[in-house]
């Protein structure tokens, strides 16, 4: 699909293609527009700093917040540094450290999700990718401060969920959020990764479908043609939504907040008995 060429109704695959475009705004593009005085912090305090995740503190219209995000690169050099936004366990542990810090200082946490998935290699296994993700899920579910996650591009699998067990989970209109990348899904179910397009269109991974399923809470409209067409406008819309939501969540008691968050995820699933 050429840039700017648009069908009235986009398929999941069209949207996936759109969010994978090099022009697609990355987390820092939004962070620099939404927040004031963002100060980035580094490292997990155990092993290293994983540049696939950025995090730090900032002001949201004067409200102190912690910001954590998957960061993709825009070119080869950036992507080598950012590992295409695919974190190692160290990235998740950095994220958790910053969330616990936010909890200590009663700062709401804003998370931007944009990853194909957690990185898969030997080091990731040796340092416990599974444990790192699991720990984040558990700790986020009972974090004693408000949290809002926004899927801005690709939300792939456990690697995305590890930043998305939040009071509010939103998606940009064209973002996708899936149990596994369509390539991986086709590989597992049909032993043929090249059937990704077909997979994408049956997996129900678009913002609208997931909103209808009750898995996410809000869809944020993108400018005509996609987020890259007018990042300033989109960042402004996100900011407005964040301000009102953060104020609302902050007015609740911590017990109420944590209980609501627990119940929200507790109720997800379809079965009969």
């Amino acid at each position, binding site marked *: 699909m050429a840039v700017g060429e648009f069908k009235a109704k986009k398929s999941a695959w069209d949207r996936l293609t759109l969010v994978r475009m090099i022009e697609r705004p990355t987390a820092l593009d939004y962070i620099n527009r939404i927040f004031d005085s963002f100060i980035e912090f580094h490292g997990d305090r155990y092993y290293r700093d994983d540049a696939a995740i950025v995090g730090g503190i900032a002001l949201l219209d004067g409200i102190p917040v912690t910001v954590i995000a998957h960061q993709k690169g825009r070119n080869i050099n950036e992507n080598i540094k950012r590992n295409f936004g695919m974190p190692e366990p160290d990235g998740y542990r950095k994220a958790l450290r910053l969330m616990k810090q936010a909890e200590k200082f009663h700062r709401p946490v804003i998370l931007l999700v944009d990853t194909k998935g957690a990185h898969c290699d030997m080091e990731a296994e040796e*340092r416990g990718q599974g444990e790192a993700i*699991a720990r984040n*899920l*558990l700790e986020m579910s*009972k974090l004693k401060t408000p949290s809002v996650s926004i899927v801005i591009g690709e939300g792939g699998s456990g690697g995305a*969920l590890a930043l998305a067990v939040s009071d509010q989970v939103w998606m940009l209109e064209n973002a996708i959020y899936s149990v596994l990348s369509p390539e991986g*899904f086709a590989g597992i179910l049909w032993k043929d990764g090249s059937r990704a397009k077909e997979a994408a269109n049956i997996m129900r991974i678009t913002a609208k479908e997931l909103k209808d*399923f009750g898995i996410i809470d809000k869809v944020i409209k993108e400018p005509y043609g996609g987020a890259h067409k007018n990042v300033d406008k989109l960042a402004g819309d996100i900011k407005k939504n964040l301000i009102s939501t953060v104020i609302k969540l902050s007015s609740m008691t911590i017990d109420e907040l944590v209980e609501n968050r627990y119940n929200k995820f*507790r109720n997800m699933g379809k*079965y009969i008995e």
Partner: protein
Amino acid sequence: MINNIFKKNKYITVSKEPIKKDVNVENKPSIPGGMWVKCEKCGQIIYNEDLDKNFKVCPYCGYHFRMNARERVEFIIDEDTFIEFDENMQSVNPLDFEGYEGKIQNLMDKTGLKEAVVTGRGKIHGSDTVICVMDSFFMMGSMGSVVGEKIARAVEKAIEYKLPVIIFTTSGGARMQEGMFSLMQMAKTSAAIGKLGEAGLLYITVLTDPTTGGVTASFASLGDIILSEPGVLVGFAGRRVIEQTIKQKLPEDFQSAEFLIEHGFIDKIVHRRELKSTIKNILVIHRTADRR
């Protein structure tokens, strides 16, 4: 050179594989009711009764055969003490994925289970526990809505009854056919384990072969105490996926329980013969702590 073609060979070729190898091709371990099984690891032929007497562990090489959920419950829970929870909960087809209902129905007929986990309450050498046992014979123990819901409910019941929880994990990961509903079960189960922790209750995970994907990245890795059977495959990403990523072959023992304990992610590897008594001892020590 032409003479060599008709020359009689001095040597016969001797295969390194045991000659018995071909005798039992029809009696693969998965065939129930067979008199004999072949060890998947060492290739030895084992009399089925001997295997059962030996806790389904190969008497020659110590390979731990996979147990289904019913066998596991019978093996670990005291006789006549098991009360099953939610045994009729069944999957639906939330994405209208073609062929999913049929696949589930086939597995229900084949395994006698409704889903890939059995949950309930029972005693281990007299100690009351809540136990969840996953079953790799039911769609590779993959976690969909039912697996997540049954585990979350079992954990919540444990909080209500103030009991420890033991989960025997085995899973290929998230149930692809249920899409994002599957992924959310990771959040749901981990949150339930979080609540159990807040209630000050013990959670033991026992990793059994294989434990991978979304289950590794949720409740399997969250035990206060993480035990594993020997030789178990444990990992987040599949071997094939990693080999594709790094474009090289992985070492043989990669992602084994032995590899994981060396890297600090497992507390103890326990031979199946000692598993029940080890769990009992852990439970007793925690009960003693409660009374103080």
